[in-house]
């Protein structure tokens, strides 16, 4: 098990080729309210990074910066840089729709569209202008397989997505994101509305995804962060308190605040 200093140094020492997302001195304000303060971190490629912290600490705001989702909020002002594949996504030349296909996102509540399972999965591809049925069929099968849903829905692809269970709907939404072949997948509390078995299925799926993708997951479930992630970032009141390997953080955290939060002494 790495010690505290080795764990933190190895994350700081990542080269640009090893880094999926680099955040440099990122601050974000909504009007006069500061949501993120001077955050810097590097997220390694093909790994799972958990972001933990109390409600309102800025977890969802931070991952919203990774695909510029916060741009949709009025009065949002961003300082600093977010580099995806070594390119600043807040630069003036960034094409935001392309960024969002490169950096997919799944939310807390499963939100399938009111259409068939198949149409849900290929929705993004159709938006991109792909109409070739064979390409769409292959993409749907691949994405549903990756989301560990194919075996359960292959005989009912044209049934409405709404008939699926909550856990299946969430995997369908993940499949919809995966169909666009994003490099990075952002998951904002993806299992908080699911039962324990569906939660474990999603966690198993997330674990498999890191072979091809970089996954960033926001979670309120500390055990989930400990189970699935390779490294964990702890945020409090918009500040990054600690960022280290998950093994280290859950056995020997560096900061007193982290210790207090993960052992339930916060408040």
């Amino acid at each position, binding site marked *: 098990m790495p*010690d*505290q200093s080795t764990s933190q140094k190895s994350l700081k020492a990542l080269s640009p080729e090893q880094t999926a997302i680099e955040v440099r001195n990122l601050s974000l304000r909504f009007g006069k309210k500061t949501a993120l303060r001077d955050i810097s971190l590097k997220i390694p490629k093909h790994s799972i990074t958990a972001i933990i912290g109390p409600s309102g600490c800025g977890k969802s705001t931070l991952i919203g910066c990774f695909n510029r989702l916060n741009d949709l909020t009025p009065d949002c002002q961003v300082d600093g840089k977010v580099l995806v594949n070594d390119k600043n996504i807040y630069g003036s030349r960034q094409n935001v729709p392309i960024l969002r296909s490169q950096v997919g996102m799944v939310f807390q509540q499963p939100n399938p569209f009111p259409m068939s399972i198949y149409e849900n999965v290929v929705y993004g591809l159709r938006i991109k202008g792909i109409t070739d049925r064979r390409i769409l069929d292959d993409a749907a099968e691949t994405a549903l397989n990756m989301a560990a849903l194919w075996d359960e829905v292959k005989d009912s692809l044209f049934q409405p997505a709404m008939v699926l269970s909550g856990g299946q709907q969430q995997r369908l939404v993940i499949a919809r994101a995966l169909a666009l072949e994003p490099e990075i997948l952002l998951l904002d509390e993806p299992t908080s509305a699911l039962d324990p078995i569906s939660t474990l299925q999603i966690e198993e799926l997330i674990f498999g995804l890191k072979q091809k993708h970089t996954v960033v997951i926001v979670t309120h479930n*500390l*055990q989930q962060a*400990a189970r699935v992630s390779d490294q964990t970032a702890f945020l409090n009141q918009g500040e990054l308190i600690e960022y280290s390997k998950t093994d280290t953080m*859950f*056995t*020997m*955290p*560096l*900061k*007193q605040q*982290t*210790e*207090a939060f*993960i*052992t*339930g*002494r*916060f*408040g």
Partner: protein
Amino acid sequence: MQNFNISGHISGKFNQELESLKNAVLAMGGQVELQLRRTLTALRSEDKRAAEKIIHDDNKVNEMELRIDDECMRIIARRHPTASDLRLVLTIVKINADVERIGDEVERIARMITLTDLPASARIKADMFETGQQILEMFNSTLNAFARMDSESAKRIHTDDRKVDEKYKHLLVQVIQEMQDNEEIAPAWLDILWSLRAMERIGDRCKNVCEYIIYFVEGVNVRHDDTDFADE
């Protein structure tokens, strides 16, 4: 990072559970310490009846060990401890086993007192008693270091084990010399040798407990390395 405060959780019940667990280990340590003290008294006075009671009382320690193990398992299953809480529970699992084994070593010394008319000279008996006092003090200090989660004291005690080892080697030479003059009662001498070994092992087990305390407080694993705290 150092954190000795095992309370302060939002869950008051979890605070109580950890506090009770720690107190249970101290109570068990206190029982073993009492038995060691009684054993030394019985050794000095060659009181076989007192030694038999000490052997019988080892059952109390065994029962305490099982209860502490069960409680550790329950806390891991229900509370999912992390960070210092996790280190505390793991430390207690390890200390629990070592303290129970110290109880077994005390029982071994007491058994010698019941079985044998000690053939050793008054000098060896005095030295055995002195070594016993030394390990009693070492064990008492170890329990205090655990109660206070004091890693600095633990490092000092860790170093003190060398004195016990030296004393053991010295006594071994003396015993072997006297054995050669009284070869006809070899089994009794073997009992004495086993008891000396038990005293030396109590020192080693105190050293183990100190290593767990250092791990809990500092998060550094010093087992199986050649760290000499006397040099620090």
